């Protein structure tokens, strides 16, 4: 049986936890220490698929591009998004401006790949108390229209991390 490689880009503002989500998903680890990403780092994760005899496929090699986060001084480099079938837009639920920027990131991606799949990770949900979580879930959930969905995630606790990556993977291998 064979493997298919697919590229996915993690986009979002700086410090929202893109690298941490990948680390949790790929290495099952988490560190509180913030280490900014410059350029791009590509991680791999092989995801087993239901064997497809017709296409001779039983694994998906996910190439996860960890893009440098957007800052006031530097926008996301569009060339990284070429060839990516999907993106995972990440925002920090404790920083409203990172949520406000989600739509811009989506537009940037759709400008390059209009048929691409989009998932949204509203990360660091562990930093909100139950009241704040309820309020945010009420107010935000219906805001975004995505092909995969918006998930409240925590790289720290692992909440919804596998779920969101697997949801994207399923979308990429129909």
């Amino acid at each position, binding site marked *: 049986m064979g493997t298919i*490689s*697919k*590229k996915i880009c993690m986009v979002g503002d*700086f*410090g929202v936890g893109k690298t941490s989500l990948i680390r949790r998903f790929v290495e099952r680890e988490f560190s509180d220490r*913030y*280490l*900014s990403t*410059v*350029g*791009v*780092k*590509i991680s*791999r994760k092989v995801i087993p698929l239901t064997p497809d005899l017709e296409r001779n496929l039983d694994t998906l090699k996910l*190439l996860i591009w960890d893009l*440098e*986060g957007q*800052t*006031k*001084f*530097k926008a996301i*480099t569009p*060339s*990284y998004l*070429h*060839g*990516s*079938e999907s993106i995972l837009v990440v925002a920090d639920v*404790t*920083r409203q401006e990172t949520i406000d920027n989600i739509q811009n990131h989506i537009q940037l991606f759709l400008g390059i790949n209009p048929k691409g799949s989009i998932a949204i990770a509203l990360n660091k949900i562990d930093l909100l108390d139950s009241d704040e979580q309820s309020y945010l879930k009420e107010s935000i959930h219906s805001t975004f229209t995505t092909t995969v969905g918006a998930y409240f995630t925590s790289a720290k606790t692992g909440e919804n991390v596998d779920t969101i990556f697997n949801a994207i993977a399923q979308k990429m291998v129909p």
Partner: protein
Amino acid sequence: MTPPLQALNLPSFIEYIIIDANFRLTHLASHTVSHCHANLNINDDVRNAFQELVGIEQITQRILAHQQPGFTLQEVIHYSSQQPDSGIYLTLNLQRLDEQHLIIFIEDVTETALLRQALVQRVNETELLLNALQLSENYNRRIISSMGDALFTINASGDLKTINTAALTLFGYGEAELKNQPLATLFQNQIPASISPESILKNPTLENYEVTCHTKQGNSIIVSFSCSFVHSKENDLPIFIYIGRDITARKKAEQKINQALAQEKELNDLKSRFIAMTSHEFKNPLSSILMSVELLEEFADHWTLEKRMTHLKRIRQCTTQMNDLLEDILVLGKADTGKLEFQPRPLDLGNFCQELTEELQFLAGDRHAITLHLQSPLAPTYALDEKLLRQMLVNLITNAVKYSPQGGVVDFRVAVEGESLWFEVQDQGIGIPESDQPRLFECFHRSHNVRDIKGTGLGLSIVKQAVELHGGTIAFRSAIDQGTTFEVHLPLHLTPWNS
């Protein structure tokens, strides 16, 4: 087929690989990227070594077809199998070589990427920190702003630094008007000692200190302050924190309640004094009457006429005494209910005073000398209420006699002073203690130094009522054991007869 590389005329330090349309390696510079991709061989799919090339097949096709000039992927981190912990940053630049081949220039940008990483790290950390600080500040500011109590802080010099909305509202200032101004601004330029910074340093938990503050509009308000201090982290200087609650309304309500309570107590005292006095004043004569009646019933037949008359006289005296007391109470009762009326009639004042003096002198006996001084010529008549005037002067003169137990002179002076009649009654008696003077005209109030001199405490109340019904004024001066002088002024303009 390998393209003519010599034609490219590339310097030897430029690293590159050449691939075909299927990403197969057709050529690599001998020194190229061997440190990270040692196993790259001719005809290998370069996408295994350069994963960043996965997915850009359409772009390479476009470059080969001259539809796109080239493509660059900057700062892609690569980890070699030899040094998995320290990656190198490569920038790949894809260019068309011919219709079948692409050349990929590979630049090691690790040095600049690491420098940039250090810079970005610092900038982003600062940004995150600022963001967290701002959130925290906003959170704290919202809490402080929403407080119902006034909150402000001052530095060691007493200058206001932080002032919340409630404080601005309470004192009626705008923030710019108070910030960096001295705290004394709120206290008419004088910080009360109880809540001064010095006091707070001595007692860091000052609570509920009530002080009077002044608003911008000049109103006085009573504020209950709780004060404390903290040291600023930067320079260890103290910052004094004041939390105040406006208790003006509560204080006014308390004051009203206290006044009402005092009045109620006063009324209760009055009632008690009235009951005590009346029972005492009535009981004695009633006992005497009862005793005399019993004796007369039992022994009248055996007694001489003279002895029977003695007892009958005692009964009459006691009855008169009770009647007088009742009269006094009735007068005051009428005055209280507004039924006591001022009914002026033309009165020959000189004659009236003369007769009154003689009458009272007779009652006073030899030990006292009541002297009338008519100090200015009097008109034939004045419009006066004879009954009220009599009550007034009888009480003043009999008091003068009564409270001069050792005997002596009582001077009764009468004169016309401008538009009023002036009466003065002066004795050399026991005087009125200073502590009793403010309440002298209250019903049933008697001075502490009266000892066993009998009295009801109603006389001067009646005098005052009579004076006031005449539209006049009464005043007195007194010294212990030196005597008392009462002065009464009655206006003459109240009735047409006097004009």
